[in-house]
């Protein structure tokens, strides 16, 4: 197994607030990993630190063999083409149509001719389960679930090795959320994609996740397969799973 992401001793402080106090874990190629934790435990902050958007106070992030915070801008730029990020509300560019949104990474980072970009954009749309007609719409005309799918298509445009998802199913109805889960899992299985997501969604955890990392009070309190994490006796984890667990265990 090849380690594609390694986070070591991350410390994050905002003023006197200590958000992370020595967080560390690693992710192997092809894994689908979820990061869970209560509100305000710095999950999204950690995600931003891993992809080079926010500098941690201390610690090291090794992504695809490159130290995100020690390398020069050129190396990090090259790295950015090798992972995709799905922001919470999609973060589609509102001045562009859906098709143009997906074409942005192709136009900026490859020298593909327009004649190839158009069919590839159409294919990316069908890959995430949308019709090519969606491409002509403006992002504001789409529902929340469709925006996320478009954002996923854009994140997948450059054939990333790792996909980061920030609460991919929040704001979706249960049917849409499960469909999105299945899509992510299918892509991961078929493309060998490594997926790292921040999520609150227990159903996601119990259905498509290989490994769960739980964050509480600035530390990793559990790291392992969902079933093992559920057995942890940490009070927060107990509370987290207690609401739904019996029912879920019965059905899956």
């Amino acid at each position, binding site marked *: 197994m090849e380690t594609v992401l390694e986070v070591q001793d991350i410390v994050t402080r905002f003023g006197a607030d200590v958000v992370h106090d020595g967080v560390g874990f690693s992710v192997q190629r092809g894994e689908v990993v979820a990061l869970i934790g209560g509100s305000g435990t710095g999950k999204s902050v950690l995600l931003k630190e891993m992809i080079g958007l926010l500098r941690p106070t201390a610690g090291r992030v090794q992504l695809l063999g490159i130290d995100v915070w020690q390398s020069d801008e050129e190396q990090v730029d090259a790295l950015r083409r090798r992972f995709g990020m799905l922001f919470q509300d999609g973060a589609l560019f509102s001045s562009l149509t859906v098709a143009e949104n997906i074409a942005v990474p192709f136009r900026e980072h*490859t020298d*593909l001719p327009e004649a*190839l970009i158009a069919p590839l954009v159409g*294919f990316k749309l069908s890959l995430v389960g949308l019709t090519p007609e969606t491409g002509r719409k403006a992002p504001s005309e789409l529902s929340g679930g469709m925006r996320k799918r478009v954002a996923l298509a854009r994140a*997948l445009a450059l054939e990333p090795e790792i996909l980061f998802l920030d609460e991919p199913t929040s704001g979706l109805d249960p049917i849409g959320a499960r469909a999105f889960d299945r899509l992510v899992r299918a892509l991961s299985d*078929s493309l060998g994609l490594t997926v790292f997501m921040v999520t609150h969604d227990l159903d996601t955890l119990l259905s498509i996740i290989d490994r769960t990392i739980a964050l509480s009070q600035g530390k990793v309190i559990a790291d392992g397969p969902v079933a093992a994490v559920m057995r942890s006796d940490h009070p927060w984890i107990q509370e987290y799973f207690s609401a739904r667990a019996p029912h879920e265990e019965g059905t899956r």
Partner: protein
Amino acid sequence: MAGERRWISPALEDGANVLYLQGRWRLSHVPGIAAEIDALKLAGDHCVLDGSRLEELDTAAGFLLLRRLAALGCIAGTVEVRSMADGHSRLLTLVRERMAAPSVAAPSGHRGALERVGRATIRIWRILQAQVTFLGQVALEIAAALRRPRLFRLKETVSQFETVTLDAIPIVALVTFLIGVVFAYLLGVQAQRFGATIFVVDGVGLAICRELSPILVAVIVAGRSGAAFTAQIGSMKVQEETDAIRTLGLSPIQVLVVPRLVAIMAGLPLLVFVGDVAGIAGGMLIGALQLDISPAAFLARLHTVLPMTALAVGLAKAPVFAAFIALIACRMGLAVARDARSVGEHTTSTVVQSIVWVIVLDAIFAVALQRLGI
């Protein structure tokens, strides 16, 4: 077999087409791969994909290959995959499942010139219609507030008045002062030739009070406050704040529009007066420096030649301009769609519409007042 083939080696084995895929089929190599795929020719509609020499494969390359094969007549049933890594064949399967839909997504947004002009004309008509509807709604809300004064939001109105009027005084004074200077100077250059410099006072007084100050101030307020109104209300619309107002049983027009309308209608005449004073002061400065008219003589002359009606006409136009600016700005704000670009577009549109309307109204005033002999 043709010489340089980097990505695909076609071969005929036992009468079947065999395509040996080779190398790293990555997005960065896709232009080269695509060229070879497009040059591909098959005998019959059956082929075998051999992956034994394939090192890497991603969806873009896989998609282009399968698309070409489909165009050549090889579909799911007639394409066979052999000695391919599990991951690669799973990827091809996924691509085949997902590519079913026709792949045309190129935006075809280009319109002919005639169509554009036509659409723009229809849009103007729609805007006018919506504007009249909105005017009616606002009138109803004001009537409601008159019947039940508790509905009227005094605090919000005062705070809007402060930003619209007090904060605008420096810029209004500066602009009209400079226009007074320019106008007096140009007029003075002409008048000096005839030794009639004292008439500069008549010209500056009349022009500033009756036309220049109202128009300039209205344009400044349209750019400053009109744009701000649209942007504020538009962002609230994007954040669904206007819906929240409605669900709380309040009327967005009563809460957002009426205070702004009242504030700007009360504020604009005051700003026009500030503009009058500053413009005349500008004229006075040029009179003293350039034309040998002492401030005392300037004011004495102004006293006799500037009719009260000129000042009154200028001040009376201001609330009308103000009402149009506020109504346009608020309606454009409420018409914002749920995205950031829309806020920008509507804000621009507010400024353009407001300025156009100020000038149209001013022309109407000029003709009407002339007919009335004022």
